[in-house]
């Protein structure tokens, strides 16, 4: 099954590269996505099927959560992408479709890889396949964004590689062989050399933090998210970041098993709260609503890292937040993409009254804003609330207080921009543009929002069990 999940999209990518019709090629996306989703569900339902012939490829409980989230998000985004590309027949979508499909395979590899080196390779590969996606619009701005995405991302990921090597050396130093598979690392974690482990953790935190977009390594994020098409933004904010977080989660797991909680939680809390603060600061007065979404992503990566820093009591909320954040980001980026399309601008100077011009997208954008800022009854509320409760459980009242305060700052910053976009009177003569909400560009967002809402009101028992398993796994209680 692992090979289906990983290789099938890659094969489809090759087919996409071979198909000649610019018009029909995008339909390969939903096909691959549906197959992938079906395979994912089969694997998840199968329970024990999370293993494969290769020992490095294991689908562990945290991996399941990320795989499910990414697969669902991709499935819905793929339909949207068809609708989107229909409006972009001016450009060849060969590279776009191929890269998007390859991206799905690479991301599946991240979730399956149980070898830290392999995981690094997969994450680096995800950087490379997404770069052409960001460059899709072929403008000066998109080149600049791609350049920064690639270079900052590569530097960060290089540090992660160094960190991985450090980690390997930590186990080598402990006299262990066959280093870097997660199993062996976890098995002998307490014996790992502490100085190497600490240095490795810092490098990995910075490295994968760069991919996640933690401040201050987030600098590429507003550029890339701002210039990429909405659907790519959704996949970056809901897919790449989740995978990078999964990587960090595995590192956390090793350090936790090594009994280094005190060391790592300091660093994690610092980075998390710092990211939330930076996101808040840059969101206030933000006029570009897609860049604003990028900062929102920075904020939510901060939330995830804070949850990780709190440790065991907040793990449940953190893992749930991976799901809720990823799906909500989909709602936001896709609806923002529609608005961007209709107005041919993403500055609040021009974009006003989206609820009038695009009743559906405007409403979804507004609802997505309320969801992502943690308003009940949407999913992110439950997960953020769980993290807060975890903080209090751990006796970290100051962290909890700062967490809430930054949420308020972000709400204010984000709300001002969102309301400017959706409210008011639409400009009487918008830029010549005939985009209006259609089924393909509307329905997937509605579905995503419905999922987000559902997660806030009712979490199905299997999902709860999945998250519970993951928590137990991370706590080494499994």
């Amino acid at each position, binding site marked *: 099954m692992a090979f289906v999940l990983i290789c099938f999209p890659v094969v489809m990518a090759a087919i996409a590269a071979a198909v000649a019709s610019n018009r029909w090629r995008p339909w390969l996306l939903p096909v691959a996505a549906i197959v992938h989703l079906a395979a994912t569900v089969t694997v998840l339902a199968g329970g024990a099927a999370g293993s494969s012939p290769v020992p490095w490829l294991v689908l562990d409980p945290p991996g399941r959560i990320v795989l499910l989230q990414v697969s669902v998000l991709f499935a819905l985004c793929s339909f949207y992408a068809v609708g989107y590309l229909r409006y972009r027949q001016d450009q060849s979508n060969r590279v776009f479709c191929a890269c998007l499909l390859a991206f799905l395979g690479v991301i599946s590899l991240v979730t399956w890889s149980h070898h830290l080196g392999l995981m690094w390779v997969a994450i680096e590969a995800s950087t490379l396949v997404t770069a052409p996606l960001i460059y899709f619009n072929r403008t000066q701005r998109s080149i*600049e964004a791609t*350049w*920064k995405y690639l*270079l*900052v991302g590569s*530097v960060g990921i290089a*540090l992660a590689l160094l960190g991985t090597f450090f980690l390997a050396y930590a186990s080598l130093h402990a006299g262990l062989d066959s280093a870097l598979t997660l199993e062996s690392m976890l098995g002998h974690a307490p014996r790992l050399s502490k100085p190497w482990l*600490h*240095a490795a953790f*810092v*490098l990995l935190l*910075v490295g994968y933090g760069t991919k996640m977009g933690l401040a*201050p*390594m987030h*600098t590429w994020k507003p*550029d890339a998210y701002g210039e990429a098409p909405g659907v790519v933004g959704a996949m970056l904010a809901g897919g790449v970041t989740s995978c990078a977080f999964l990587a960090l989660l595995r590192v956390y797991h090793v350090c936790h098993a090594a009994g280094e909680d*005190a*060391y790592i939680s*300091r*660093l994690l809390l*610092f980075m998390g709260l710092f990211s939330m603060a*930076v996101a808040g*600061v*840059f969101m*206030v*007065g933000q006029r570009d609503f897609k860049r604003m979404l990028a900062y929102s992503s920075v904020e939510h990566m901060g939330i995830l890292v804070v949850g990780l820093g709190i440790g065991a009591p907040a793990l*449940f909320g953190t893992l*749930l937040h991976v799901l809720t954040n990823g799906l909500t980001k989909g709602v936001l980026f896709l609806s923002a993409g529609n608005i961007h399309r209709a107005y041919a601008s993403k500055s609040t100077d021009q974009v006003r009254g989206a609820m009038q011009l695009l009743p559906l997208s405007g409403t979804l954008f507004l609802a997505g804003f*309320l969801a992502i*800022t943690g*308003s*009940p*009854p949407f999913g992110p*509320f*439950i997960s953020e*609330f*769980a993290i*807060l*409760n975890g903080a*209090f*459980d751990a006796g970290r009242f100051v962290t*909890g*207080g700062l967490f*809430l305060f930054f*949420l*308020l700052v972000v*709400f*204010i910053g984000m*709300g*001002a921009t969102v*309301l400017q976009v959706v*409210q*008011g*009177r639409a400009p009487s003569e918008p830029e010549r543009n005939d985009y209006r909400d259609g089924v393909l560009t509307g329905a997937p967002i509605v579905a995503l929002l419905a999922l987000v809402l559902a997660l*806030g*009101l*009712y*979490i199905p*028992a299997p999902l*709860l069990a999945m998250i519970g398993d993951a928590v137990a796994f991370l706590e080494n209680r499994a």
Partner: protein
Amino acid sequence: MSATWNILAAIVVLGLSGLPAYLLPARSETGQRVATAAMVAGSLLGLCGVAGGVGGAIPSVAGAAWGLPYGRFSVAIDAVSAVFLALVFVVPALGSIYGLGYWGHAQHRGTGRRLGLFYGLLAGSMALVLIARDGVLFLIAWEAMAMAAYFAASVEEDDPAVRRAGWVYLIATHAGTLCLIAMFALWRQATGSFALEPAPAMAAGLASAIFVLALFGFGFKAGLMPLHVWLPGAHSAAPSHVSAVMSGVMLKMGVYGIVRMTALLPVGPPWWGGTLLVAGAITGLAGIAFAIGQHDLKRLLAYSSIENIGIIAMGLGLAVLGRALGRPEWVLLGLGGALLHTINHGLFKPLLFLGAGAVIHCVHTRELDRLGGLARRMPAVTGLFVIGSVAICALPPLNGFASEWLIYLGLFRTVGLGGEPGFAPAAVAAVVLAMIGAMAVACFAKLIGTVFLGSARSDASQHGHDPTATMMGPMIVLAFGCVCLGLFPSIAIAPLEDASRTWAALAESTPISLAAVAPLGWISAAGLGLVAVVATFALISRITPRAGAVAEAGTWDCGYARPDRRMQYTGSSLGATLVDLFGLVVWPRNHQPAIHGLFPGSATFKSVVADTVLDRLVLPFFRAAGRYMSMFRVFQQAQMQSYVLYVLTIVIVLMVWGTMGAEP
């Protein structure tokens, strides 16, 4: 049990009442009628449930496990909820009927359905807030209410002023919600679950932290000063029947929250009650002082709501104090008064807002100094407005008096009657209440004088007529309620007593009762006596033969032959002295031209009463914060070099930060 189901059904009907209209065209009146019918039906259903739930001896509870990691779907009605539920099931339905005439779908094609949708949702979620017995369910209902109110109030978002008011509201409500989120998280720390059941015991510090968070979280919604910042703007921006519901009912959800949490927490230290008393006194006094200074009809009413919330908070503070000091009679009088005032304010404030709506509907301005002389053109509305004003000034024989009277009685008892132990500082609140009362008279005399009396101050206000029956009906019902509760306040005594006993968990055997400490029967008698005397005088003036001989003439203007409508005393000047007396708080700003020479040219005078907290404190702070925050943008100026440097820097910082932690 069935009562709970009744109410749940009512919530569903109310919450979804706006949906059917979406199946019909935007301008269809039928959709609106269906929504109104659903509102009325749902409210009646709910009222049946309340009646059943209060009649039943045991509190009816319904609970179900729920697919959330936290929380259960757990609801219950008790005597405290019932008091507030009664309000929820009366005012929104009346407002909805009023809306048929006021916000007809045919005239408001773009906004009618949306307003209907959120209006119903607002009513339904408020009812859910009142019966929720689980923290997470409560938060969900609370946020639904806050958001529905936001969308209902900012339905005219074309107008920048409405957007701004809505935005301030949104920030305030979100800040409040975050306080509540923290509060419930602490509640779980203290009790181990989110169940809203009386906590046996907890650490004093934790209990106080929960209390303070509740005070802030709910204070934002109720409008306690200085957390009231959103209230005047939102109320003046909203359509009048939405203002009526917000002011009459939604603010009370904040009150309910404080009532509920103080009941659930263990008996706290006296400073809880003291804080509430002080907050109430400040809110009441500052609220009415600001109200007097307003130039906008609906902003004035909104500030008056703040004042009334202050009065309610004073009663509540007295009850909390009484509970802390073990004085059941303070509890009965304080909470009884607070709850009765909640109901009363829920009757007369909607009446006033609907009346204001009727005025605005005809005259199309809310500016006081452009109104005037409407009493001749809108006699019925004027009469109803006078009833509402007399009631809100707490003047006998209407209902406002009864509730304030209860609070007064309680506060007088804190002075230590005849040397029994008391808590004399609390008694000062009675003096503050007296001052509030006197200023309320000033405020509403000004309001009635400038809106309805005299002659029209602008051409706009020369038109006008009493509105249609759909708009008059709800106002008449509300006025009738004011009169009824004013003349016969004892009909409320049983529910109030129940609620107070439930709240303070007083044993059945406690030998004290509300009826014993507050002879409400005398209020009825004295009130009826007053009505009788007035009626007699009126009759005498009718039948006296001379009375018919009436000549008409212009107003005597001390010899000036050509009085002009612009020579009338304006609303601003009516309140000027009081506003100046409270200048430190109200901070009026007068733009007064200097006049020189013998024949000065034309000049204009302008006075502005901004909200001190919002316009002089909060907004400047936000602007400054925004400026400082934008300074950080130098860090994101597109140079790759600096971006890479950040990465290197953070590696070094983390390495150092990590080793620093390892040392101790």
